[in-house]
């Protein structure tokens, strides 16, 4: 016996050593969390090019914070903006601050495209030349030449048709902004407002960065409250900060509330502190070990995995509770022998149920499966190896609560040989299945939306003032070369323009509009040459200038032949700054470019875009909102299959041991799950992914309940153990139903209803 305990001790120590090693290895690798929805995409579906492009677009958005500083007094606001900029740029958390345009930049912006005025021309002018409407162009030129306004940057010799003015004049900045005193003034606002764009030096999800940046802005606002009426803001940082704030508040209230609830319950039941620590010990080992293993295998832990994995506490606490309750009625020597079959079967069935999704192509589900298997196994091993050692000298004394709880259970009617009760249970089952069948699922992206409505409204107003209306949709154009990609874009643009004129789409921003393909530029040059041939003489005739200036003008145009704006030159230009992200930097194709769509896309607009895109090879319409909703749907369907497969699997495994008694174990979680879904549908919720994930936890806890009860012939202490397990899970996760975060709310509500039902149905299935 002595040597036996010695061996157990050394195995237990070896186990802790393994855990310590895994944790050390994982820590050396570094803790990394992943929150990108896109990394949950199934591998078979992962089109790397689309993903690179989507990530590039969302990264550019997420690192930006837009500020609009407004005040009554023009001069004061300007001074405040300058002072604020000087102070903000000192923050290490801000890598770039765009708030003014220097004189030299204005000069460069105004002139840099001038050398290419014969090959990069305004699309309207191009259309007129192609239609042979030469006279309109020369009339416009003459009106400018004789008009009161300066004809800046153009001259009668170098650009008599004002091609450059036409190009600059019609190029939309896309924003309601003009440069005023070197600052970026928002046009069309009631009081003077100026724009600043911050680029963050790090992730907007970093709490430290959020605090530093938002604090600095509010300090500046307070310091200059006499000049600044308001500072409007827009950016991912705000949503991330709002989300973090909400999570913190909820953890502080719901989290601490449930923790206190659990502690009080355990103290009331066991009347000692030690059992509480004994319960937490395996659970903690399980969570830490699983996180470490995931880090080692996947290198990053996805936040969704982590949230779901934490739910395992509810299942892994089963083992410890079962042991501790049984220990009160059995000696240190016999306890493990008594409960070991039940524990082993509990673990086995849970691993089967939780491990199944490892076989799916969904990286998110695979991570969750791996997390569950590692976490449960580690908690289980810890219970089996360590709890007997630690509790060797504990007293053996029945718990009073167990008897009382058992009496309560005896008051429940028994389902067996009670046809009325069977009917009462089955009748609503039919109704429930019917209502679930007829309900519509909900795979809406809004489930993932956590920002408060006030923030969304404020951001919307600001975007309206600025004239930003970007949508999450874009067209990805891949080809063998950048030139070929631009040529494809030009084909697309003519089709998109029609959609824009019809009002089907709000608008779009195409790279080829700023940087035409070399082929298009050569065409443009030839068109301009026809224009010169047809109209130059007329213009010079009206202006009445000497013939030598006419031939000089002609020569300037001819000499510019072959002077094209290459992508290399374009990328060096100041004006390309905001548009470079329309070239996909990391790509599997030789070249890929983007046409960004603006405004809301209706479903008919999407259909039209799809049909345009389908006819062109290498062109893809990417709708990020739809992609995420599709992804959620795929995950929900997978999770539904998972639940069903898990039940079938568990049924077979348990059948081997329990034969015909297996219904006592499987029916409670199964009925509870169906009723829960029906109740959710009746409450007006569409069934979504998070409901299904919660049901998997309900299954796990429900199974353990049935297995442990059957193994101990429904002993009062087992009933106490499983009731406590259900109750702690209810406190820990059911309270999440109060959360404002949709994901947590759905998860918590399902667990609350599901576990309550499992606990209520379970006694009906009892044998004795």
């Amino acid at each position: 016996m002595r040597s036996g305990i010695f061996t157990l001790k050394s195995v237990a120590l070896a186990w802790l050593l393994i855990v310590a090693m895994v944790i050390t290895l994982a820590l050396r690798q570094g803790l990394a969390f992943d929150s990108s929805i896109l990394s949950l995409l199934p591998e078979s579906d992962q089109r790397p090019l689309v993903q690179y492009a989507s990530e590039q677009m969302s990264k550019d958005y997420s690192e930006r914070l837009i500020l609009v500083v407004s005040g009554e007094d023009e001069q004061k606001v300007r001074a405040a903006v300058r002072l604020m900029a000087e102070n903000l740029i000192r923050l290490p958390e801000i890598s770039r601050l765009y708030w003014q345009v220097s004189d030299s930049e204005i000069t460069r912006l105004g002139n840099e495209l001038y050398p290419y005025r014969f090959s990069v021309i305004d699309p309207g002018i191009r259309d007129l030349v192609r239609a042979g409407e030469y006279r309109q162009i020369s009339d416009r030129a003459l009106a400018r030449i004789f008009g009161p306004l300066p004809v800046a940057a153009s001259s009668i010799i170098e650009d008599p048709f004002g091609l450059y003015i036409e190009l600059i004049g019609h190029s939309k900045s896309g924003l309601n902004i003009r440069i005023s005193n070197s600052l970026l003034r928002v046009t069309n606002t009631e009081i003077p407002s100026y724009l600043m764009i911050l680029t963050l030096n790090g992730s907007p999800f970093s709490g430290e960065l959020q605090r530093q940046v938002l604090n600095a802005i509010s300090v500046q606002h307070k310091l200059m409250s006499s000049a600044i009426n308001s500072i409007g803001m827009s950016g991912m940082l705000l949503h991330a900060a709002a989300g973090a704030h909400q999570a913190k508040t909820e953890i502080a209230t719901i989290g601490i509330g449930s923790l206190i609830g659990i502690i009080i319950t355990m103290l009331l039941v066991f009347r000692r502190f030690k059992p509480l620590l004994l319960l937490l010990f395996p659970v903690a080992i399980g969570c830490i070990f699983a996180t470490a293993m995931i880090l080692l295998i996947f290198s990053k832990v996805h936040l969704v995995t982590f949230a779901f994995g934490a739910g395992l506490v509810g299942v892994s606490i089963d083992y410890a509770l079962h042991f501790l309750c049984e220990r009160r009625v059995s000696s240190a020597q016999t306890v493990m022998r008594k409960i070991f079959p039940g524990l082993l079967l509990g673990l086995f069935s849970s691993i089967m149920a939780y491990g199944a999704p490892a076989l799916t192509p969904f990286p998110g589900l695979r991570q969750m499966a791996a997390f569950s298997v590692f976490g449960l196994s580690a908690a289980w091993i810890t219970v089996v190896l360590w709890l007997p050692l630690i509790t060797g000298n504990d007293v053996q004394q029945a718990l009073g609560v167990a008897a009382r709880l058992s009496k309560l259970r005896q008051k429940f009617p028994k389902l067996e040989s009670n046809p009325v009760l069977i009917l009462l249970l089955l009748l609503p089952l039919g109704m429930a299945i019917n209502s679930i069948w007829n309900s519509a699922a909900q795979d809406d992206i809004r489930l993932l939306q956590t920002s408060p409505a006030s923030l969304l409204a404020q951001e919307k107003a600001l975007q309206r003032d600025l004239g930003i209306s970007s949508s999450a949709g874009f067209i990805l154009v891949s080809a063998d070369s950048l030139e070929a990609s631009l040529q494809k874009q030009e084909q697309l643009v003519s089709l998109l323009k029609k959609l824009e004129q019809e009002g089907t789409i709000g608008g779009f921003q195409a790279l080829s509009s700023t940087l035409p393909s070399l082929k298009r530029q050569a065409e443009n040059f030839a068109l301009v040459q026809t224009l010169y041939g047809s109209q130059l003489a007329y213009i010079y005739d009206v202006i009445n200038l000497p013939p030598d200036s006419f031939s000089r003008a002609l020569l300037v145009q001819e000499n510019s032949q072959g002077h094209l704006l290459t992508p290399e030159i374009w990328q060096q230009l100041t004006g390309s700054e905001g548009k470079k992200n329309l070239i996909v930097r990391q790509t599997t194709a030789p070249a890929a470019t983007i046409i960004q769509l603006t405004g809301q896309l209706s479903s008919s607009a999407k259909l039209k875009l799809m049909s345009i895109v389908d006819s062109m090879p290498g062109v893809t319409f990417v709708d990020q909102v739809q992609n995420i909703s599709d992804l959620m749907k795929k995950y929900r369907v997978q999770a539904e299959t998972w639940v069903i497969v898990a039940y079938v699997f568990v049924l077979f495994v348990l059948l081997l041991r329990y034969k015909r008694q297996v219904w006592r174990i499987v029916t409670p979680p199964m009925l509870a799950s169906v009723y829960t879904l029906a109740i959710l549908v009746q409450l007006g919720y569409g069934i979504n992914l998070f409901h299904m994930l919660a049901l998997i936890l309900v299954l796990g806890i429900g199974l353990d309940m049935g297995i442990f009860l059957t193994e101990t012939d429904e002993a009062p202490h087992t009933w106490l153990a499983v009731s406590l397990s259900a109750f702690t899970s209810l406190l820990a996760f059911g309270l999440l139903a109060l959360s404002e975060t949709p994901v947590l709310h759905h998860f918590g509500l399902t667990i609350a209803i599901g576990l309550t039902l499992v606990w209520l149905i379970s006694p009906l299935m009892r044998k004795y």
Partner: protein
Amino acid sequence: MKWGILGILAMLIPFAADAQVTFSQLAEITTSPERLEGRFRQEKYLAALDATLMSTGVFSYQRGKLIRWEILEPIRNILELTPTAMTTMQADGEILRLDSASNSNAAVLGRIFFSVLTAEWESLSNYFELTGEIEGRQWHAVLVPIDAAVMQVFSLIELTGGDLLQEVILHEKSGDRTTIRLDSHR
């Protein structure tokens, strides 16, 4: 042509040294009627060609709302300026409209011209520094741009007038120069 500008600058020195004219002083002596119309004669000097283009026509305005600038000779063209848009109408009926939101540069030029013609001194003070002199009811003002975008186009603007604006000279950075003489009647 460079000498032209230097010459003008030299001429300005006595003004600059003289009394410090403020925008509000100008606002006091000039009247800006609700409506005004008249004839104009414009000379545009093109530095690169050393040539001058002449044009004449009529204009009218409603203060703060609209300026209509109709060229009658040598071509026919109507330019309408509002605080937010600029519209050109050609003899053949073609209409070209530019919103200030979509075309900020032309919008600033349009707004400046609008402010100059309708004597909105307050608005001009956003873009220019003022020097000049006042003699009785007659005044001469020189506006030097302080705004970088405006500097791109204008080197300075000269205004002469009495009760009403009489002459505008727009000196462009390129060396071009537009002289407009106004003969207004209410």
